[in-house]
Protein backbone atom coordinates (compact mmCIF):
# COMPACT_ATOMS: atom_id res chain seq x y z
CA UNK A 1 0.00 0.00 0.00
CA UNK A 2 1.57 3.23 -1.06
CA UNK A 3 0.85 6.78 -2.02
CA UNK A 4 2.27 5.96 -5.42
CA UNK A 5 0.42 4.08 -8.10
CA UNK A 6 2.11 3.50 -11.45
CA UNK A 7 4.66 6.14 -10.55
CA UNK A 8 2.20 8.95 -9.85
CA UNK A 9 2.18 10.16 -6.28
CA UNK A 10 -1.25 10.65 -4.74
CA UNK A 11 -0.65 13.24 -2.09
CA UNK A 12 -4.12 14.58 -1.40
CA UNK A 13 -4.14 13.16 2.10
CA UNK A 14 -0.85 14.85 3.00
CA UNK A 15 -2.03 18.26 1.82
CA UNK A 16 -5.53 17.80 3.14
CA UNK A 17 -6.88 18.18 -0.38
CA UNK A 18 -8.85 14.99 -0.39
CA UNK A 19 -9.09 11.24 0.15
CA UNK A 20 -6.88 8.62 -1.41
CA UNK A 21 -7.88 5.12 -2.48
CA UNK A 22 -4.36 3.93 -1.70
CA UNK A 23 -4.22 4.33 2.06
CA UNK A 24 -6.82 2.29 3.91
CA UNK A 25 -8.82 4.59 6.16
CA UNK A 26 -6.45 7.39 5.24
CA UNK A 27 -9.14 10.01 5.75
CA UNK A 28 -9.58 9.30 9.45
CA UNK A 29 -5.82 9.03 10.05
CA UNK A 30 -5.16 12.34 8.29
CA UNK A 31 -8.08 13.99 10.03
CA UNK A 32 -6.83 12.85 13.44
CA UNK A 33 -3.31 14.06 12.72
CA UNK A 34 -4.66 17.42 11.62
CA UNK A 35 -6.76 17.97 14.73
CA UNK A 36 -3.86 17.05 16.99
CA UNK A 37 -1.84 19.89 15.47
CA UNK A 38 -4.43 22.59 14.82
CA UNK A 39 -7.74 21.50 16.26
CA UNK A 40 -9.71 22.56 19.28
CA UNK A 41 -10.39 20.04 22.03
CA UNK A 42 -13.86 19.40 20.61
CA UNK A 43 -12.51 18.87 17.09
CA UNK A 44 -9.79 16.55 18.35
CA UNK A 45 -12.28 14.53 20.37
CA UNK A 46 -14.43 14.06 17.28
CA UNK A 47 -11.47 13.06 15.12
CA UNK A 48 -10.28 10.60 17.74
CA UNK A 49 -13.73 9.04 17.93
CA UNK A 50 -13.89 8.75 14.14
CA UNK A 51 -10.55 6.94 14.07
CA UNK A 52 -11.54 4.77 17.02
CA UNK A 53 -14.84 3.79 15.41
CA UNK A 54 -13.21 2.91 12.09
CA UNK A 55 -9.89 1.39 13.16
CA UNK A 56 -9.99 0.55 16.85
CA UNK A 57 -8.11 1.60 19.99
CA UNK A 58 -4.66 0.35 19.02
CA UNK A 59 -4.80 2.47 15.89
CA UNK A 60 -5.60 5.57 17.93
CA UNK A 61 -2.69 4.95 20.29
CA UNK A 62 -0.25 4.26 17.45
CA UNK A 63 -1.41 7.29 15.47
CA UNK A 64 -1.26 9.58 18.50
CA UNK A 65 2.25 8.36 19.25
CA UNK A 66 3.45 9.09 15.71
CA UNK A 67 1.75 12.49 15.61
CA UNK A 68 3.25 13.44 18.95
CA UNK A 69 6.73 12.39 17.95
CA UNK A 70 6.57 14.39 14.74
CA UNK A 71 5.06 17.42 16.48
CA UNK A 72 8.27 17.41 18.51
CA UNK A 73 10.85 16.35 15.95
CA UNK A 74 9.64 18.95 13.43
CA UNK A 75 10.67 21.55 15.98
CA UNK A 76 14.05 19.94 16.56
CA UNK A 77 14.75 20.00 12.83
CA UNK A 78 13.78 23.64 12.40
CA UNK A 79 15.29 24.98 15.62
CA UNK A 80 18.66 23.42 14.79
CA UNK A 81 18.33 24.22 11.08
CA UNK A 82 19.31 20.80 9.78
CA UNK A 83 19.63 20.33 6.06
CA UNK A 84 18.06 17.47 4.13
CA UNK A 85 20.66 14.98 2.96
CA UNK A 86 21.87 15.51 -0.60
CA UNK A 87 21.26 11.80 -1.26
CA UNK A 88 17.53 12.47 -1.00
CA UNK A 89 17.45 15.28 -3.54
CA UNK A 90 16.81 13.26 -6.70
CA UNK A 91 14.48 10.64 -5.28
CA UNK A 92 12.21 13.20 -3.65
CA UNK A 93 11.85 15.44 -6.69
CA UNK A 94 8.42 14.21 -7.80
CA UNK A 95 6.56 14.79 -4.59
CA UNK A 96 8.52 17.92 -3.71
CA UNK A 97 7.22 19.31 -6.99
CA UNK A 98 3.70 17.97 -6.44
CA UNK A 99 3.54 19.53 -2.97
CA UNK A 100 5.60 22.65 -3.83
CA UNK A 101 7.75 21.83 -0.83
CA UNK A 102 10.76 23.74 -2.11
CA UNK A 103 8.87 26.94 -1.38
CA UNK A 104 8.80 26.13 2.34
CA UNK A 105 10.90 28.58 4.33
CA UNK A 106 12.36 25.52 6.03
CA UNK A 107 13.64 24.06 2.74
CA UNK A 108 17.33 23.45 3.36
CA UNK A 109 19.35 20.97 1.29
CA UNK A 110 22.83 19.80 2.16
CA UNK A 111 25.39 21.66 0.12
CA UNK A 112 22.92 24.29 -1.04
CA UNK A 113 23.45 26.67 1.88
CA UNK A 114 20.70 28.15 4.03
Amino acid at each position, binding site marked *: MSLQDEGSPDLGLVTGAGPSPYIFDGDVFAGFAEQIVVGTTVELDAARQALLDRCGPRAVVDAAAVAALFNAI*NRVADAIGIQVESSKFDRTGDFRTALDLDSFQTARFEGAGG
Partner: protein
Amino acid sequence: MKMAVSYANSALAVRADIETAHKAAWGHIAAPGTWLDGETRVAIAAETRNVAACALCAERKASLSPYTVEGEHDHLGALPENYVELIHRIVSDPARIAERWVRSMLGDDLPDTHYVEIVGVVAHSICVDTFCDGIGVARHDLPESVPGEPARVGPDGAAEDISWLPTVGPEAASDDLKKIYPGNIGDAPTAPHVRRAMSLVPAEAQSFFALNDAQYLPPEAMWQVDVNPRAIEKAQVELVASRVSALNGCFY
Protein backbone atom coordinates in the same frame (compact mmCIF):
# COMPACT_ATOMS: atom_id res chain seq x y z
CA MET B 1 1.90 15.05 45.78
CA LYS B 2 2.83 14.79 42.11
CA MET B 3 1.62 11.70 40.29
CA ALA B 4 4.13 9.57 38.43
CA VAL B 5 3.69 9.04 34.69
CA SER B 6 1.07 6.34 34.18
CA TYR B 7 -1.53 5.42 31.60
CA ALA B 8 -3.30 2.94 33.89
CA ASN B 9 -6.45 5.05 33.87
CA SER B 10 -6.49 5.69 30.12
CA ALA B 11 -9.63 4.45 28.37
CA LEU B 12 -7.33 3.32 25.56
CA ALA B 13 -4.70 0.73 26.42
CA VAL B 14 -1.29 2.31 25.93
CA ARG B 15 1.61 0.14 24.81
CA ALA B 16 4.04 -0.63 27.60
CA ASP B 17 7.00 0.64 25.61
CA ILE B 18 5.37 4.06 25.29
CA GLU B 19 4.71 4.29 29.02
CA THR B 20 8.28 3.20 29.74
CA ALA B 21 9.66 5.79 27.33
CA HIS B 22 7.52 8.53 28.85
CA LYS B 23 8.59 7.69 32.40
CA ALA B 24 12.19 7.88 31.20
CA ALA B 25 11.53 11.19 29.43
CA TRP B 26 10.11 12.74 32.57
CA GLY B 27 13.08 11.49 34.57
CA HIS B 28 15.40 12.89 31.92
CA ILE B 29 13.78 16.32 32.14
CA ALA B 30 13.95 16.38 35.93
CA ALA B 31 17.56 15.31 36.29
CA PRO B 32 20.61 17.56 36.00
CA GLY B 33 21.45 17.77 32.33
CA THR B 34 24.67 18.31 30.48
CA TRP B 35 24.64 22.09 30.85
CA LEU B 36 21.46 22.95 32.77
CA ASP B 37 20.36 21.86 36.21
CA GLY B 38 17.15 19.96 36.88
CA GLU B 39 15.30 22.97 38.20
CA THR B 40 15.98 24.90 34.98
CA ARG B 41 15.03 21.92 32.86
CA VAL B 42 11.67 21.48 34.57
CA ALA B 43 11.11 25.23 34.27
CA ILE B 44 11.73 24.88 30.51
CA ALA B 45 9.07 22.16 30.32
CA ALA B 46 6.64 24.35 32.26
CA GLU B 47 7.33 27.31 29.98
CA THR B 48 6.81 25.07 26.96
CA ARG B 49 3.30 24.35 28.21
CA ASN B 50 2.73 28.02 28.92
CA VAL B 51 3.33 29.16 25.33
CA ALA B 52 -0.26 28.43 24.36
CA ALA B 53 -1.35 31.30 26.62
CA CYS B 54 1.11 33.86 25.26
CA ALA B 55 -0.54 36.81 23.52
CA LEU B 56 2.71 37.97 21.90
CA CYS B 57 3.20 34.55 20.33
CA ALA B 58 -0.36 34.58 19.01
CA GLU B 59 0.17 38.02 17.50
CA ARG B 60 3.46 37.00 15.92
CA LYS B 61 1.95 33.81 14.54
CA ALA B 62 -0.77 35.81 12.84
CA SER B 63 1.60 38.40 11.44
CA LEU B 64 3.23 38.47 8.03
CA SER B 65 6.59 38.20 9.77
CA PRO B 66 7.20 37.34 13.41
CA TYR B 67 10.31 39.50 13.32
CA THR B 68 8.32 42.71 13.00
CA VAL B 69 6.23 42.21 16.12
CA GLU B 70 7.86 43.31 19.34
CA GLY B 71 6.69 42.95 22.87
CA GLU B 72 6.99 40.88 25.99
CA HIS B 73 6.01 37.28 26.29
CA ASP B 74 3.48 36.14 28.84
CA HIS B 75 5.79 33.88 30.79
CA LEU B 76 6.10 32.15 34.13
CA GLY B 77 9.00 34.22 35.44
CA ALA B 78 11.35 31.34 36.17
CA LEU B 79 13.76 31.66 33.24
CA PRO B 80 15.93 34.35 31.65
CA GLU B 81 14.28 36.35 28.88
CA ASN B 82 16.42 34.85 26.13
CA TYR B 83 15.46 31.32 27.20
CA VAL B 84 11.81 32.40 27.15
CA GLU B 85 12.15 33.89 23.66
CA LEU B 86 13.78 30.69 22.39
CA ILE B 87 11.17 28.39 23.93
CA HIS B 88 8.25 30.48 22.76
CA ARG B 89 9.54 30.68 19.19
CA ILE B 90 10.24 26.97 18.93
CA VAL B 91 6.82 26.05 20.25
CA SER B 92 4.63 28.62 18.51
CA ASP B 93 6.23 29.25 15.11
CA PRO B 94 9.02 26.80 14.30
CA ALA B 95 8.61 26.97 10.52
CA ARG B 96 9.61 30.62 10.47
CA ILE B 97 12.76 30.26 12.54
CA ALA B 98 15.49 31.90 10.48
CA GLU B 99 19.23 31.38 10.66
CA ARG B 100 19.86 35.06 11.41
CA TRP B 101 17.50 34.88 14.35
CA VAL B 102 19.24 31.77 15.69
CA ARG B 103 22.62 33.46 15.41
CA SER B 104 21.25 36.57 17.11
CA MET B 105 20.16 34.43 20.03
CA LEU B 106 23.54 32.77 20.56
CA GLY B 107 26.11 34.39 22.82
CA ASP B 108 27.86 34.11 26.14
CA ASP B 109 24.56 33.96 27.98
CA LEU B 110 23.14 31.36 25.56
CA PRO B 111 25.95 29.25 24.06
CA ASP B 112 25.13 26.73 21.37
CA THR B 113 25.34 23.89 23.91
CA HIS B 114 22.64 25.42 26.10
CA TYR B 115 20.53 26.25 23.04
CA VAL B 116 20.57 22.59 21.98
CA GLU B 117 19.78 21.38 25.48
CA ILE B 118 16.79 23.72 25.65
CA VAL B 119 15.59 22.39 22.28
CA GLY B 120 15.93 18.88 23.70
CA VAL B 121 13.86 19.58 26.79
CA VAL B 122 11.19 21.36 24.74
CA ALA B 123 11.03 18.42 22.36
CA HIS B 124 10.71 15.85 25.14
CA SER B 125 7.86 17.71 26.79
CA ILE B 126 5.99 18.39 23.54
CA CYS B 127 6.30 14.72 22.59
CA VAL B 128 4.75 13.45 25.81
CA ASP B 129 2.14 16.20 26.12
CA THR B 130 0.95 15.87 22.53
CA PHE B 131 0.51 12.13 23.02
CA CYS B 132 -1.65 12.73 26.08
CA ASP B 133 -3.72 15.26 24.14
CA GLY B 134 -4.02 12.80 21.27
CA ILE B 135 -5.40 9.93 23.30
CA GLY B 136 -7.56 12.22 25.41
CA VAL B 137 -5.96 11.96 28.85
CA ALA B 138 -4.84 14.72 31.16
CA ARG B 139 -1.23 15.79 30.80
CA HIS B 140 1.05 14.37 33.47
CA ASP B 141 2.18 16.52 36.37
CA LEU B 142 5.62 17.88 35.61
CA PRO B 143 8.26 16.06 37.64
CA GLU B 144 10.04 17.35 40.70
CA SER B 145 13.51 18.46 39.73
CA VAL B 146 16.43 16.40 40.98
CA PRO B 147 19.21 18.28 42.72
CA GLY B 148 22.72 18.07 41.40
CA GLU B 149 25.19 19.68 39.08
CA PRO B 150 25.14 19.39 35.30
CA ALA B 151 27.85 17.24 33.77
CA ARG B 152 29.38 20.12 31.79
CA VAL B 153 31.18 17.86 29.36
CA GLY B 154 30.70 18.24 25.61
CA PRO B 155 31.49 15.85 22.78
CA ASP B 156 34.58 16.08 20.61
CA GLY B 157 34.37 16.43 16.87
CA ALA B 158 31.39 18.76 16.53
CA ALA B 159 31.22 20.69 13.26
CA GLU B 160 28.82 23.15 11.72
CA ASP B 161 28.40 21.40 8.40
CA ILE B 162 24.82 20.18 8.04
CA SER B 163 22.98 22.65 10.24
CA TRP B 164 23.10 26.07 11.84
CA LEU B 165 24.56 24.63 15.04
CA PRO B 166 27.41 22.14 15.41
CA THR B 167 26.65 18.44 15.27
CA VAL B 168 28.75 15.31 15.66
CA GLY B 169 28.74 12.95 12.72
CA PRO B 170 29.08 9.18 13.10
CA GLU B 171 32.76 9.19 12.18
CA ALA B 172 33.53 11.36 15.21
CA ALA B 173 30.89 9.93 17.56
CA SER B 174 31.70 8.31 20.88
CA ASP B 175 30.38 4.80 21.52
CA ASP B 176 27.43 6.25 23.42
CA LEU B 177 26.50 8.64 20.64
CA LYS B 178 26.94 5.94 18.01
CA LYS B 179 23.92 4.18 19.53
CA ILE B 180 21.63 6.72 17.86
CA TYR B 181 23.25 6.17 14.49
CA PRO B 182 21.80 2.90 13.16
CA GLY B 183 24.19 0.90 11.06
CA ASN B 184 24.26 -2.43 9.30
CA ILE B 185 20.50 -2.32 8.71
CA GLY B 186 19.92 -2.90 5.03
CA ASP B 187 21.05 0.19 3.14
CA ALA B 188 20.17 2.56 5.97
CA PRO B 189 22.23 5.70 6.18
CA THR B 190 24.15 5.69 9.38
CA ALA B 191 23.36 9.21 10.43
CA PRO B 192 20.30 10.88 8.94
CA HIS B 193 20.64 14.50 9.77
CA VAL B 194 17.64 14.54 12.04
CA ARG B 195 19.40 11.98 14.24
CA ARG B 196 22.44 14.23 14.32
CA ALA B 197 20.48 17.36 15.15
CA MET B 198 21.00 17.37 18.93
CA SER B 199 24.31 15.49 18.98
CA LEU B 200 26.12 18.54 20.39
CA VAL B 201 24.43 17.44 23.62
CA PRO B 202 24.53 13.65 23.27
CA ALA B 203 22.33 12.97 26.29
CA GLU B 204 19.47 14.90 24.65
CA ALA B 205 19.87 13.08 21.35
CA GLN B 206 20.04 9.67 23.01
CA SER B 207 17.04 10.27 25.22
CA PHE B 208 14.91 11.78 22.48
CA PHE B 209 15.58 8.93 20.08
CA ALA B 210 14.43 6.46 22.70
CA LEU B 211 11.09 8.27 22.40
CA ASN B 212 11.37 8.11 18.62
CA ASP B 213 11.92 4.38 18.62
CA ALA B 214 8.88 3.77 20.86
CA GLN B 215 6.49 6.24 19.26
CA TYR B 216 7.46 6.22 15.57
CA LEU B 217 9.51 3.28 14.33
CA PRO B 218 12.71 1.69 15.60
CA PRO B 219 15.58 1.72 13.06
CA GLU B 220 15.15 -1.88 11.95
CA ALA B 221 11.52 -1.17 11.08
CA MET B 222 12.31 2.05 9.25
CA TRP B 223 14.73 0.49 6.83
CA GLN B 224 13.26 -2.98 6.33
CA VAL B 225 9.96 -3.08 4.46
CA ASP B 226 8.74 -6.31 6.05
CA VAL B 227 9.35 -5.25 9.64
CA ASN B 228 6.42 -3.46 11.25
CA PRO B 229 5.95 -3.58 15.03
CA ARG B 230 2.84 -1.37 14.95
CA ALA B 231 -0.86 -2.19 14.84
CA ILE B 232 -1.31 0.14 11.87
CA GLU B 233 0.13 -0.10 8.37
CA LYS B 234 3.43 1.60 7.66
CA ALA B 235 1.72 3.74 5.02
CA GLN B 236 -0.69 4.92 7.71
CA VAL B 237 2.25 5.70 10.01
CA GLU B 238 3.90 7.75 7.29
CA LEU B 239 0.63 9.49 6.43
CA VAL B 240 0.24 10.70 10.02
CA ALA B 241 3.89 11.75 10.14
CA SER B 242 3.72 13.65 6.88
CA ARG B 243 0.39 15.35 7.63
CA VAL B 244 1.74 16.64 10.96
CA SER B 245 4.94 17.77 9.31
CA ALA B 246 3.07 19.53 6.51
CA LEU B 247 0.94 21.41 9.02
CA ASN B 248 4.05 22.39 10.98
CA GLY B 249 5.69 23.59 7.76
CA CYS B 250 8.65 21.29 8.29
CA PHE B 251 10.47 20.62 5.03
CA TYR B 252 12.79 17.94 6.40
